């Protein structure tokens, strides 16, 4: 079985990478999980996962005649993590079209693929993870710009045949207000509110320490919220071969 989720927000600063890793670690208690940094232009999964010094990244796999996928897969925190590098020249040399082959190769050997997506919808490479995924998890903050951009992500996703698994409110500072805001937001999103994650200094500390939140502060309220989100996410039992075929046959054009 395998299901691919794009973790997306359309807007920067919502805590998407933190959320991707935290959801990944929480899901890993039940499933084999692979987390891929699909934000190729602004990679930061490697910093969150303590992989800043690794030699081979997704960029090295995406260049012509590049490294095999397995060289860029790292076992960390009970997950398989595929980081991107931060070198701009490597990014320019990488061909995002090859991402579908990478995802297809990973799909053969995992239950859940989480694609940490770019915080924009302005380029084909940025939208590609949303196109390739089965479902999207929309990361929101309780602000108007984040909600507005989250709605856009959902419309893009559904236009490309990708369902919404749910919404996740991050950096929540006012617990009373979110109880009023979340149900109103749910009227417009196709999926339920998976969880609301409180704003927390421990999230920032985890990031500074290069450790995922669930490793740094597993008993924090924020970590608990992510476990709640994972528990409410029913992973669909996709056929690995069919999913891999779909990725391989995804039509992605040449020009940027």
């Amino acid at each position, binding site marked *: 079985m395998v299901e691919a989720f794009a973790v997306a927000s359309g*807007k920067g*600063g919502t805590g998407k990478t933190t959320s991707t890793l935290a959801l990944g670690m929480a899901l890993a208690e039940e499933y084999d999980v692979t987390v891929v940094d699909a934000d190729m232009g602004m990679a930061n999964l490697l910093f969150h996962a303590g992989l800043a010094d690794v030699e081979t990244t997704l960029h090295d796999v995406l260049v012509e005649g590049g490294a095999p996928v397995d060289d860029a897969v790292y076992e960390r925190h009970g997950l398989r993590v595929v980081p991107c590098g931060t070198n701009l020249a490597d990014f320019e040399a990488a061909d995002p079209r090859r991402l579908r082959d990478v995802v297809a190769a990973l799909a053969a050997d995992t239950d859940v693929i989480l694609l940490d997506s770019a915080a924009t*919808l302005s380029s*084909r490479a940025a*939208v590609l993870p949303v*196109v*390739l995924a089965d479902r999207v998890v929309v990361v929101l*903050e*309780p*602000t*108007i*710009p*984040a*909600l*507005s951009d989250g*709605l*856009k992500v*959902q*419309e*893009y996703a*559904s*236009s*490309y*045949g990708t369902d919404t698994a749910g919404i996740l409110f991050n*950096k929540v*500072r*006012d*617990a009373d*207000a979110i109880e*009023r*805001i979340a149900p*109103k*937001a749910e*009227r*417009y999103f196709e999926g339920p509110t998976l969880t609301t994650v*409180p*704003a927390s200094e421990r999230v920032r500390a985890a990031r500074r320490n290069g450790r995922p939140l669930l490793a740094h502060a597993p008993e924090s309220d924020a970590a608990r919220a992510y476990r709640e989100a994972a528990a409410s996410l029913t992973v669909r039992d996709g056929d690995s071969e069919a999913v891999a075929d*779909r990725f391989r046959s*995804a*039509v*992605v*054009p040449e020009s940027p």
Partner: protein
Amino acid sequence: MKLPEGRLLRSRVVSDPRTVLVDALDRELTGYAVFEPQDALLLGADGRGVVTFRAGVPVVAYHTGSERAGPPALADLAAEGPYRLRLFALAPADLTAVHDEDEFRVPPGMPAERLAGDQALAERTREAAPAERLAVVSNGGAEHAEPVVGEDGDDRQPGAVEAFLDDAEKIEAIREQARDEAQQRADEWGFDDVG
């Protein structure tokens, strides 16, 4: 809401309202900003948002299209950028009358939070705000400015985010625009065969 025109400091098109709020704070502007969305679709033909400032800190918000004031006006002007923005300086005395209208007021950090989604800027703005504008409450260790309310203490005024979510028509316009954009780009990018 009537304001004298004042001295024009800046007139340009910006894509992000954050730019305006940072500029006003850095200049310690006493005056007001007029936001005019380029895309009139979402706000109706003559929808303009006005935010006033004292010493760089937002005081009141008003929307000429919806004629709503306070936090709901922030929701009305939080449409899609780009905006045509004009920033005017005024003498403090010219603002007294509108600043005395309690229902027009917004908490100092709210425009940064709700329009720009920028907590750090909201914090900076609160730090710059005079103490009497900050009704500080304890909330899980974090301190937040609450809406400045009248003597009656009516703090049930819906926040800007809720007002935004209550505006089904505007949200449908955002979704429709995104759908059109996604379709158009699917053609450009050749995504149409992806399923």
